[in-house]
Structures are given as structure tokens and as C-alpha cells.
């Protein structure tokens, strides 16, 4: 496997290992925000992988997208709770659709 993929995958495994080793839990009230934020982070990560495979990866775009999407998703959820509107659904739908689109694109690129 290309080193380009091995190191990020190693980072993923390292993060998982770190999460398993560090018994860290967030307060219950923030669990929903973290859920949506993780979904946004997943979307950004799959988008980055897709760009990496397509050789159009830009670290600036990736990092800015990763951070901003994550924060924005959590912020939308927070605002939705304060306004009494389920705005997090919008984030879930948007990121969910993009996630599947990215997965489909990655699948096609890998098959080709």
C-alpha cells in the first residue's frame, strides 16, 4: 500500500488506540454535539481520501474543511437546541449524503 495511505491510516489507528487507552469521556450534554461533529469529521476525512486518490488533495482545503465543518456542525446543533429546531438534522442529512457520495467515488476510483 502506498505510503500516502499508510501514514494516515496509522494516524487513525493511533487515535483509536489513544482513545482506548485514555479513559476520557465528555459530559452528557455535549454528547449530541460531538456526534454531529464526528459525522462532519468523517465526511471531511472521506473527502480528503477521495481528493488524495484523485491527486487533487490540498492540505489547506482539507484542514480548513475538517475544522470548520466539525465546529459548524456542533454549532448548528447547539443553535438548533437553543431555538427549539432540530437543525442538527440538516447537518446529519448534508454530511450523510456527502459521506456516501465520497464513499461511492472512492470505490469507483479504487476499482478503476
Amino acid at each position, binding site marked *: 500500500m502506498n*505510503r*500516502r495511505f499508510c*501514514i*494516515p*491510516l*496509522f*494516524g*487513525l*489507528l*493511533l*487515535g*483509536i*488506540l*489513544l*482513545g*482506548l487507552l485514555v*479513559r*476520557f*469521556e*465528555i459530559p*452528557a*450534554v455535549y*454528547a*449530541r454535539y*460531538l*456526534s454531529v*461533529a*464526528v459525522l462532519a*469529521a*468523517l465526511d*471531511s*476525512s472521506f473527502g*480528503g*481520501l477521495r481528493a*488524495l486518490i484523485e491527486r487533487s*488533495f490540498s*492540505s489547506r482545503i*482539507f*484542514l480548513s474543511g*475538517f475544522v470548520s465543518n466539525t465546529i459548524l456542525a456542533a454549532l448548528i446543533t447547539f443553535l438548533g*437546541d437553543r431555538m*427549539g429546531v*432540530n437543525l442538527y438534522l440538516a447537518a446529519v442529512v448534508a454530511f450523510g449524503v456527502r459521506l456516501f457520495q465520497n464513499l461511492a467515488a472512492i470505490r469507483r476510483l479504487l476499482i478503476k
Partner: protein
Amino acid sequence: MLPQQPRRVRPSSSSARHRRNRALTTTSLFICLGVLGFLVVVLMRTQGALGNDLQARSVDELGRLVGMLSQEVDRLQQEETDLTIKAIGSHYELRSDTEVVTRELETLKALEVLVGAVPSRGDGVRLLIGDSENHLSSYEMCLIINELRSAGAEAIVMNGRRIDYDSGIGGKPGRLALQDSPLVTPLVVEVVGDREALLSAVKMPGGLVSMLSQLPGVEIDVETAADISVPPRSYGLRTFDYAVPID
């Protein structure tokens, strides 16, 4: 002329930028995926620890939950009411059954006393009837028994023998017989019942005492008696072949 130093080939600016970009790409992906992996694990642990924690639920979910709980509370209250009603019904039914059994037992005891299945005892009055001229007939004897029963006699003993519901007195004056056993005078008639009622009944004008006293040679003396013993029926209970109770 100085010897020409071998010229060091400097990497081109584009390839250096390319390598830098690759390193930046790898590093950024490494960090972001590491963060993502860490967050996923934290999230999974948090969700696992939360379980059904209400704090993690949205307002809508909490509203639905409250609605469901309200419906459940209503259902449970209805069930409690039904069970309470059922319990009260069962209690009354049980009490009713107990009362019925008690009444039946009382009836049975009364019937046992009535038919002479068991010996009995009680207060009452005692009549001493003398008939020196043998004027007492079976008619007068039946009159005595009827009058005493009308006065409320619960049991009648004549010369130590019980007067049953099917007892018969026959014979001619002076040779009276109770169920084929002779009745000799003076007769001792013991009556279990309300003393006052019996005394007033037999002593009232036109009553038993005044009626029997009109017969020549008949003397009657009435007194109260305590703890009169009434023997049981001497010839067993009668069996009924034709008369059956109506349910």
C-alpha cells in the same frame, strides 16, 4: 584556474514544494484521522456510558418520552383502579361467602335442635300437670303442645321424653301414650324458650292454665326452670323418600 568544484545539484523549487506538499498532506491526514479516531472512540464510550441518560436527549425526544410516560401513568392508574375494584369485589364476595356459610351453619344447628339430632339445653318453664280423674285426653295433650309452640317453645320435653315434629300422642284418657310409650300422670312438661313469654302465654286468661283448670281433677302448676336438658331424638332421624327440597 581553480579546479572546478563539482556543482551541487540543488533540488528544483517545484520538487521541493512537491515534497513539502506531500509531507504536509500526510501530516494533515495523519493528525486529522488520528483526531477522528480518538473522537469516535470517545463518542462511543460516552454513548455507551450514557445509555438512557435523559441529559443526552433532545427536547423533542424528552417531550415524546414525557408523553409516553404520561400515557403509561394513565394506563397504570386505570389498571390500579380496576384492580382495586376487583379486590373490593373479591373482598365483599369473600365476606358474602363467609356470611352464607355462617348462616348455613346456624341454620344447620337450629335444624339439629329442631329435629332432635343433638341434645340441647336451655332455660324455660316447667309445667306440672296432675290428672287425678283421668280427664286428660290426647286432644288436651295436643292442645298443650300447640299452645306451648305458639308461645315460642323451642323444645318440649314431656316426662323426660322429647316431643319431636313427628311425635304422636294417642290413647284413651288415663292411658295416654307418646309414640307408643305410656304417659303417666302427673305430667312433667319442660319447655325451653323465653320464660316471660311462655309464662304470660300459659297464664293469660283463656290460656292453657285456665283452660286445663276447668277440667275436673286437673291441676296445673307453672314455674320457671333453669338449664332444662332436652334429650335427642331416641329413634333416629327420619329419612325422606318422597319429599325433596326445592332449590
